[in-house]
């Protein structure tokens, strides 16, 4: 039996941020993730905007953590070595009457403590972002907004937590929880864990986990949303995140630069029942393209390289984040219903959960050995020619380019596999290195990545998975013989 002070259930951005926060203290903590890899739930399928925080109603939990979380990003990016860009954002209005909505957002933002908000006009709009539709008239400019790759952030949190002794267990799906006076007994498909405190960060399954300990108060339903990725070959990069005027439920179709120079268009929004289905629809793709062209007319369909989707975990009673200690079950803390802006808010949610745990009786003593820094996977393509040459001479694997579209070398892939919480699947390699994320979508390199994973993990090629447990890519050798197991 594995015994811990705290067990976090769920390895999305919420759970990993909490794990990293708790790794600062002298305590035993573990994170359990059901899937083969962390950051493979909602955290892999979203827009990656670090919203500045003018949007949530000031009375909500979202308002408490959004602005604060966004302001924590620059420092975190430095410590954890993930890519973050402080791009700012604009909500673009096209008519005089739109200033009414913009002013409301402005006032709201001030109440939430968002710094530097301004209403700007044409000249300044086009100076900040020349690609905006020329019909734009007014915009709410939020200088503290930014962008990050959400899974890169979550992976960075998890790696750093792991290096500071939080145990990260993947492929551990929680199926049962019991409680006696002192601790919880947590059962997964094949193991048991013991914990004094549980943090529930299970995304769309947050209500299910709560029910396992008898808390019936929450209902989480997915709000489905689709996104598009445009090829870098579109020939321009955006300087800032562009929003239309907000719709009823969502922030409308947003055009987002990524830290790697692509453009993301997101997101549609539709309530669904199915907590697994992230199939994209034809209608969704059309809606996104139209919305994007409205803000940035230069966006063209032919530069589309990928469509994907995610499920926002919506707590239906409150339509708000639920970050609280259960009153019914002592020691059970929820961090659920983390819909948008969950990525922006994650660092602040983690601090809030830390404080709740402390209030509930967890002893937080700072750990002297805590190392806040993480060395990221080296990005070969960003090095100067001299640096590249020197690196290859030391480590020849950096001279073998595996993914040609994104120029990812074998050295980077080895580093992704052989670090703490390393990649175990083809998609895991992709999320950590970008190999297979470019315009050929793995057409040229997937088989090479399969070979490397097979070699490094010591498993036959036909056991190398795309992403989930059953996502088999190949079925063994063609010519009748089984793959030999070395």
């Amino acid at each position: 039996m594995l015994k811990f002070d705290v067990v976090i259930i769920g390895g999305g951005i919420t759970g990993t941020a909490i794990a990293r926060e708790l790794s600062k203290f002298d305590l035993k903590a573990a994170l359990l993730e059901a899937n083969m890899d962390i950051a493979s739930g909602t955290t892999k399928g979203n827009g990656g905007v670090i919203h500045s925080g003018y949007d949530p109603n000031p009375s909500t939990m979202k308002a408490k953590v959004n602005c604060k979380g966004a302001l924590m990003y620059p420092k975190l990016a430095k410590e954890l070595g993930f890519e973050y860009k402080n791009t700012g954002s604009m909500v673009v209005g096209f008519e005089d009457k739109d200033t009414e909505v913009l002013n409301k957002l402005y006032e709201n933002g001030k109440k939430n403590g968002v710094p530097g908000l301004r209403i700007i006009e044409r000249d300044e709009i086009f100076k900040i972002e020349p690609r905006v539709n020329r019909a734009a008239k007014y915009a709410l400019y939020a200088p503290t907004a930014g962008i990050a790759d959400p899974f890169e952030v979550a992976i960075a949190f998890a790696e750093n937590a792991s290096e500071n002794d939080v145990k990260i267990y993947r492929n551990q799906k929680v199926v049962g929880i019991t409680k006696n006076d002192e601790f919880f007994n947590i059962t997964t498909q094949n193991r048991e864990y013991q914990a004094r405190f549980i943090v529930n960060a299970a995304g769309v399954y947050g209500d299910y986990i709560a029910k396992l300990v008898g808390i019936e108060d929450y209902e989480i339903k997915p709000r489905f949303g689709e996104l598009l990725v445009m090829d870098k070959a579109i020939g321009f990069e955006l300087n800032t995140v562009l929003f239309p005027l907000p719709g009823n439920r969502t922030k409308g179709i947003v055009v987002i630069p990524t830290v790697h120079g692509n453009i993301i268009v997101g997101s549609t929004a539709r309530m669904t029942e199915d907590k697994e289905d992230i199939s994209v629809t034809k209608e969704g793709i059309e809606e996104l393209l139209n919305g994007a062209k409205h803000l940035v007319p230069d966006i063209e369909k032919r530069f589309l390289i990928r469509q994907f989707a995610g499920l926002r975990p919506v707590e239906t009673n409150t339509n708000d984040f639920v970050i609280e200690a259960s009153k019914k079950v002592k020691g059970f803390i929820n961090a659920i219903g983390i819909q948008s802006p969950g990525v922006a808010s994650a660092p602040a949610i983690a601090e809030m959960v830390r404080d709740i745990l402390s209030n509930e009786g967890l002893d937080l003593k700072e750990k002297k050995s805590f190392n806040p820094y993480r060395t990221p996977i080296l990005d070969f393509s960003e090095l100067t020619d001299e640096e590249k040459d020197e690196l290859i001479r030391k480590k020849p694997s950096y001279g073998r380019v595996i993914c040609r579209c994104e120029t990812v070398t074998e050295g980077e892939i080895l580093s992704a596999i052989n670090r703490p919480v390393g990649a175990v699947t083809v998609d895991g390699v992709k999320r950590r290195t970008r190999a297979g994320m470019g315009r050929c979508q793995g057409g040229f390199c997937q088989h090479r990545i399969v070979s490397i994973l097979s070699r490094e993990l010591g498993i036959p090629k036909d056991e190398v998975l795309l992403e989930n447990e059953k996502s088999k890519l190949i079925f063994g050798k063609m010519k009748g013989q089984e793959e030999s197991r070395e």
Partner: protein
Amino acid sequence: MKLKYDVTVIGGGPAGLAAAIEAKKGDCSVLILERNEELGGILNQCIHPGFGLQYFKEELTGPEYAERFINKVNEMNIDVLLNTMVINISKDRAITAVNDKGLLKIESGAVILAMGCRERTRGAIMIPGARPAGVFMAGQAQRYINMENQKIGNKAVILGSGDIGLIMARRLTLEGIEVVGVFELMPYPNGLLRNIKQCLEDFNIPLYLSTTVTRIIGKDRIEGVVVSRVDEKLNPIEGTEERIDCDTLLLSVGLIPENELSLKAGVELNTRTNGPLVDNDLQTNIPGIFACGNVLHVHDLVDHVSREGELAGQKAVEFIKNKKERGNEIILKCGKNLVYTVPKYITNTIDNLVNVYFRVSRPMNNGCLTIKSSKGLIFKGKPENFRPNKMVKFNLPPKIISKVSEELYIDVEEGI
């Protein structure tokens, strides 16, 4: 490491090999840079016969065809660097490449682009639905099976009737993998007729025209697809959806020239084909940078690729001697039924025939090739059948070229 060559060829497929051989014949120092561990390009995975009928007047497999050129390259002692990936080209033809020994800088009198093409992906054609494992591009599947000896599934649907898809339909069948059918969006097949016959009909694999995959089903591994018939505007017709169970989907939906590297050097591309805009010397807008093979435009037959490579090699040699830049005395303009022409520009001061390649945008029976100048029709061909799946080649005689200035309109027209 710093190197210096008269001619550097990027890509060691059939186009690059032919270009290198011709450049070497012209007494130049020549280097081939190839990313893979062997020469031959895509031919290495094309283990089927059907190569070389025009060039060698005999039928060879892909590797056999490549071998003849590779042997020549070896006999002529042409320098080759394998496992070496070019990562940058500058306007002044300085090439940066990496291999596991380090970073190379190569100064080059002329550069020949021969990087081939990549396959169009699921994302580019926007198939709705889930994103499970088991969706492969046809060439990718060909590599898994022919080079890696890996089984990719048990029951396959093939979307797109491009040649690679057709060849893979036969290959899968021979390997005991069931092929439910080949589904094609257009009302006509995209591959060569001989492949329809030899790869589908001979194996009783059905081909469904005006039909496409409208949804992919399956969370982890693909479990099925929904196919629908499409109308004349290629929109799916409601009510025609049909679910087909399968564990594999192959996409054979087009090839795209790989010109991201060319863009770094400032090479202008045709936005419809993604291939460089060249003159009849195959020179791009950047002086001394030439293009040939699938990186220039997607070829059906490797024989044409080799010929084009040879021309690029010869012209690179001439460039080293006379430094003549891309000519644009005559611009070839496409009429409404043409997708593109290669070349785009013609240098007027020539005495040889100019080979022009083009593709039509839709099938036409009894269409006539027409060539017009600003003054009117100057040439009309005999009625013929034209198909988008067949690249057309014709010769522009010097006597036509000498008569026109500035622009020539090329088209295929019906009923004239």
